[in-house]
Every structure is written in structure tokens, then in C-alpha cells.
């Protein structure tokens, strides 16, 4: 994985400002993922088992399980840098909530935040509720600034750690964090492809559909309650369906149109469904007003238009069109006006995904070596970066709600699996390990 970055921040800033002035759009948030952003050094001083070494919690390794999830979340937040306390010479054991010499020692080593906690099982019964206490010491304030006390069934132990990680991110950034986000995706069962949802870290897989044929390309509603996707009715026609995660209840949003009905995407306010349909000939973009059910055609030409992706303000759409030959990325206003081509390099660019920060559009680019990789481009087209490299077909980039990561599918290791990568091209991690084919990941909004 290589990243080509040519960032001269003053130049970037003036380009970004020029673009804002020119387009009048407010889709670029300059504070986001600033190059000068310094991660906050944080050390995890352990999650102890309340009952001691002979207890049930110690036998099942409860504390260390929570600690591992928490550390991974902290590292992936990209808000903190995880400091390994023993390796910088800080020995910690059984921290309480009062002052401790360890705090001063840590601060001297440049550690800004120390977190620790304890976990236990009520009544020593393996089916009983689990408790987790977490505490936070802040070197700036030089005090234990607070903590959390969670209780829940043994099945939500990972969620407790995720929730605590999100509280940490919230305290230091005012943003809710991504540790409780989910990823919807398509997984192969026999020759069928069904919708699944998992936690953002690849755990807690849940199957949502069992139609026995094809369900494709899920996208989230902004309130995380629903997924919209393409379903094949009787194998011969496509509908756009919606499923409620909590109940499994399904509705058909677009049906009986005939032809392709693909790549649905709900607007950030949830008021419009953009999608591609070929019921009037070739694939065109439409938007359905989800309140009035009025349908508006957005594109009119003899070529294929598909894959709409909303800008965070909901004022613009990025999409794929082959009106100039091979597929390329175009932008337009959400009412279909002001169409302009965004990508010009090479002859195949598709599957755009507009960052929730507004500053990048991720897409699949075909390199001169005919490899399908991920690229990023600014909405003004001024800056372009190839994010992934190497073998395999990369597809379906989708942003984390904090705009710091992407998930995508890749055949880099043979079968199609789902991977996570930072927006700067670092920390490539595979997150699906089972099954014959996992694809079309869609990262949920933050809760």
C-alpha cells in the first residue's frame, strides 16, 4: 500500500477556499483530518478482574478480553496514540480512583491520558450480568476526571468496551466515535448472496436476509434503523427494498419498473432516495421523495448513469456515467442540474463514495496496468491520490462516519473479503475471515 501525498498545506487551503468561493458549497470542513493534528498519547493500565485470580471472571479472561477490545478501538479511533505503558517503563497494578504516583510518572513520559478499570460477574454465575467500571486520568487536569459503570448480559461485553472507547473519543473531540458503528455487507451462501451486518471490527455477524437469490449493495438510512438495497424478485426483475434491522420487516420502495433498479442511496436527511433504473431504456438516475413518493428523473442521455453518492450537505451527488466512453465520475446538483465531469485519468473510474467530511471522494480507479484499485479525489478535482496498490480487484469503498477510514472489498488474497484502511493509506486490515465471498460493505452512520 502506498500513498502519494503532495501536501503543501497553504496551497491546499487556498485551493479549498477557492473551491468553496466558486461553488458556494459548504461541503468542505477544513478542520477535518488536519495534517497537523496531533494524536493524544493514551495508555491503558489494565482491566482487572474484580474477584481476583481464582474467580470466574479470571477463568474466562473477562478483564483481558475487554482490555483487548478497548485497546483496538483506541488505536483505530486515530484520535489517540496507544502507548504501551510497560515498554516506556511504567509499571501499573490495581489503580484506584485516588491520586497515584504512577500518574506523575506517566505525565513525565508524555502520556496525556491513562484509562483503567475492573470487570466482574455478578453472583459468580456465568449467565449473570457482567459489570465493567472504567476510569480516566487526564494529565492536563492532573486528576481522575471521571469514569463509567456499565452492566449488561455476557453477550454485550464487547459493546461495553466499544461504548467506553466512544466516551473517550467524545470527551476529547466532541464527536461520538466509531467503535459502536456497524458494517452492512453481502455474503455468499451457496450460490445466493444475502445481506449481513457486523460490528465495525468484524465481530458479531448477523444474517439479515435469506431469500436464496441475490440481494445486493446495501446502504444505511441516516438514523441506522434501515438498509436499502437491490433485491431480485423471482430472479427476473429487480426491486429496491428496505429492511428494518430491529425487526427484519421489509418494504419495497421501487418495484414494477422493469430493467435495472440498482445502487440506492438515501440522502443525509433521509428525505430522498437516489437510485439508478433502466426502466426507460438505459440506466438513468432518479430520486424518489420518501415523503410524497414523487419520482423525479435526474439524468437524460443515451449512456449508463449509476451509483449516486450524496455530498454531506445533500446538495450534490457524485455518480458514475459512461457518457464519455468508459465509466467516469461526474458531479451534479441534487436536482440534476450543473453536471460536470470530475475524473479524467485513465478510462475506468466508478463507484464514488463522498466522504462524510466532504473533502474527498473515494472511487475505484483502473490503473494503467489494468488493476482496479481505490483512489481519492477532491471534489474540485485538484488533488488525486491512489490509495491502494498490488494484486486483486478492489471495489465498493465506503467511509467511516468520522471520515478517517474506508472499508472496501478486495480479491487481493483470492476470495473477495472486506478490508479497512485509513484515509491516508495506512493500517490496512482485513476484517472478514469466513465464507466464500464477502463484498459491498457499507459503513453505518455514527449512532
Amino acid at each position, binding site marked *: 500500500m502506498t500513498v502519494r501525498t503532495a501536501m503543501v498545506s497553504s496551497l491546499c487551503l487556498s485551493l479549498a477556499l477557492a473551491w468553496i468561493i466558486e461553488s458556494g458549497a459548504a461541503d468542505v470542513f477544513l478542520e477535518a483530518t488536519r495534517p497537523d493534528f496531533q494524536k493524544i498519547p493514551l495508555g491503558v493500565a489494565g482491566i482487572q478482574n474484580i474477584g481476583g485470580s481464582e474467580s470466574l471472571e479470571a477463568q474466562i479472561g473477562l478483564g483481558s478480553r475487554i482490555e483487548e477490545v478497548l485497546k483496538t478501538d483506541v488505536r483505530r479511533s486515530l484520535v489517540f496514540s496507544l502507548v504501551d505503558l510497560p515498554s516506556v517503563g511504567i509499571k501499573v497494578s490495581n489503580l484506584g480512583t485516588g491520586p497515584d504516583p504512577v500518574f506523575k510518572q506517566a505525565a513525565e513520559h508524555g502520556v496525556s491520558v491513562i484509562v483503567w478499570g475492573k470487570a466482574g460477574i455478578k453472583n459468580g454465575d456465568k449467565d449473570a450480568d457482567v459489570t465493567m467500571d472504567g476510569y480516566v486520568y487526564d494529565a492536563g487536569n492532573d486528576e481522575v476526571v471521571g469514569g*463509567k459503570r456499565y452492566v449488561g448480559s455476557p*453477550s*454485550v461485553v464487547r459493546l461495553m468496551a466499544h461504548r467506553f472507547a466512544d466516551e473517550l473519543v467524545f470527551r476529547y473531540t466532541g464527536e461520538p466515535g466509531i467503535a459502536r458503528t456497524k458494517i452492512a455487507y453481502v455474503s455468499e451462501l451457496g450460490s*445466493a448472496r444475502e445481506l449481513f451486518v457486523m460490528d465495525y471490527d468484524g465481530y458479531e455477524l448477523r444474517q439479515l436476509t435469506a431469500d436464496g437469490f441475490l440481494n445486493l449493495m446495501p446502504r444505511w438510512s441516516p438514523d441506522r434503523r434501515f438498509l436499502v438495497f437491490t433485491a431480485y424478485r423471482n*430472479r427476473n426483475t429487480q426491486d429496491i427494498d428496505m429492511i428494518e434491522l430491529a425487526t427484519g420487516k421489509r418494504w419495497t420502495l421501487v418495484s414494477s419498473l422493469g430493467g435495472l433498479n440498482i445502487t440506492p442511496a438515501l440522502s443525509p436527511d433521509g428525505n430522498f432516495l437516489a437510485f439508478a433504473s433502466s426502466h426507460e431504456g438505459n440506466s438513468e438516475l432518479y430520486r424518489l421523495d420518501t415523503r410524497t413518493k*414523487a419520482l423525479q428523473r435526474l439524468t437524460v442521455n443515451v449512456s449508463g448513469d449509476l451509483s449516486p453518492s450524496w455530498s454531506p450537505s445533500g446538495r450534490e451527488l457524485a455518480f458514475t456515467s459512461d457518457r464519455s466512453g468508459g*465509466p467516469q465520475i461526474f458531479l451534479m446538483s441534487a436536482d440534476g*442540474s450543473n453536471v460536470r465531469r470530475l475524473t479524467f485519468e485513465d478510462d475506468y473510474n466508478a463507484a464514488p463514495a463522498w466522504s462524510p467530511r466532504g473533502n474527498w471522494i473515494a472511487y475505484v480507479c483502473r490503473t494503467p496496468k*489494468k488493476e482496479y484499485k481505490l483512489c481519492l479525489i477532491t471534489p474540485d478535482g485538484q488533488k488525486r491520490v491512489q490509495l491502494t496498490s498490488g494484486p486483486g480487484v478492489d471495489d465498493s469503498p465506503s467511509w467511516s462516519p468520522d471520515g478517517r477510514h474506508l472499508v472496501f472489498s478486495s480479491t487481493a488474497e483470492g476470495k473477495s473479503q472486506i478490508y479497512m484502511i485509513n484515509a491516508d493509506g495506512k493500517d490496512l486490515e482485513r476484517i472478514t475471515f469466513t465464507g466464500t465471498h464477502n463484498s459491498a460493505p457499507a459503513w453505518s452512520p455514527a*449512532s
Partner: protein
Amino acid sequence: MKCLQSAISLSLVLGMILLGMAGCSKKAIQSGGDTQSSQPGAAKGSPSFPDTSLSGRDGSGGLRGLDKNPSEERVGSGTNTLMAKADPGSAGRQMDEIRAEQSASAAAGLRDVFFAYDSFLISDEGRQALSRNAEWMKANPAAQLKVEGHCDERGTSAYNLVLGEKRAKAARNYLVELGVAANRLAVVSYGKERPFCREHAESCYAQNRRGHVVLRTSK
């Protein structure tokens, strides 16, 4: 920050009231540019579905913040963690129907059309295959065909659905040229989602770039 959030939620509420009023007139929004308004009736079969509009979010994601004397917080009772289990519904019936289609198509001797990379042009061999299919259709006037468009694994899932449809339509159009009535020919695109072959090699890709001609045995 709080003040800004209140202002945003207020304007959201006002906006929704205004949009709600506009919605009462039930007319598609007309606008300029590359756009054309279609008949609202085109959304037929779009029955009522739950409101997907985003209403009030405070940005805290349900987090309550750190507390010097934290009270017990129950984890896992929110709707976000509840998830229905999929009900294995029609999977078996689908498999039976696919098998019936496959065996009927094989018995009829229907031939598939193959395509070059990135292309939906019918080759000479493809024309020969379709000519045979057209003759079979003339001899079997009650038969209904379906042309499935397939693609190899290269390229995006989404664009391959469009390419698959172009391939299926190219095959259908040639059958129509040969005199088969268009209403006996359905097209459907499966893109790269139902591959015939799974190796990452051209010999396999060539098999997957296909207009698969199937006899319809069910609606």
C-alpha cells in the same frame, strides 16, 4: 456549540414543516438543467414505507459523558443492538426453480453468447449461437426466453450490472432482428454476482462474460 445545535434543530423542524406542506400538493418538483420531471405514477408499487427522514440528533450518539461518581448504565437495551434473525424463507424454492430452468434450457439445446473484455458487441460466433436459438424459438412458438447478462470479476459490482444489461440487450436485439417477437424475450443482468467460474484467470473470465440464454419455466 449547544446554541448552534439548537439553531440547527429548529431550522430542521421548520424545514420539515415547510416540506410537509409542499408535500401535500403531491407534485413532482420541477427543476432545470439535465432534469425532467416524471409522472408521479411512475413510482407505482411504491406503497407506504416508514419515514426515513432524520429527526433530531444531538450529536452525542447516546453517550452521557464521564462522571466522577458514575451511576450504573445498562448496555445493550437500545434498538441499535436488537437485530432480527433472518427467516430462511424462499431459498429452497429458488433452488428448485433454478434447477428446472437449467435442465429445460439444456434439453432445448439453447446456446450462450460470449463477449470480449469491457465489450457488449456480439461476435460472429455469438451470431451463430443466436441464429440457432432463433430457429428453435420459431419451432417452439409458445416458449419464452430469458437472456441473463453476466460479467467477469474485473470492474465494480455496480458498473458490471450495467454492462451485463447491455450484453443481455445486445443478444435480445439480435434475436429480434432474426424475427423472434420481443415480447417472448426477457432480459436480466446479474453483473458479476453469479459467476460460472471462479478462478482469477482469463480462461475463467471468458466463460463469465456471457449472455446466458435460459428457457423460462416460471413467471
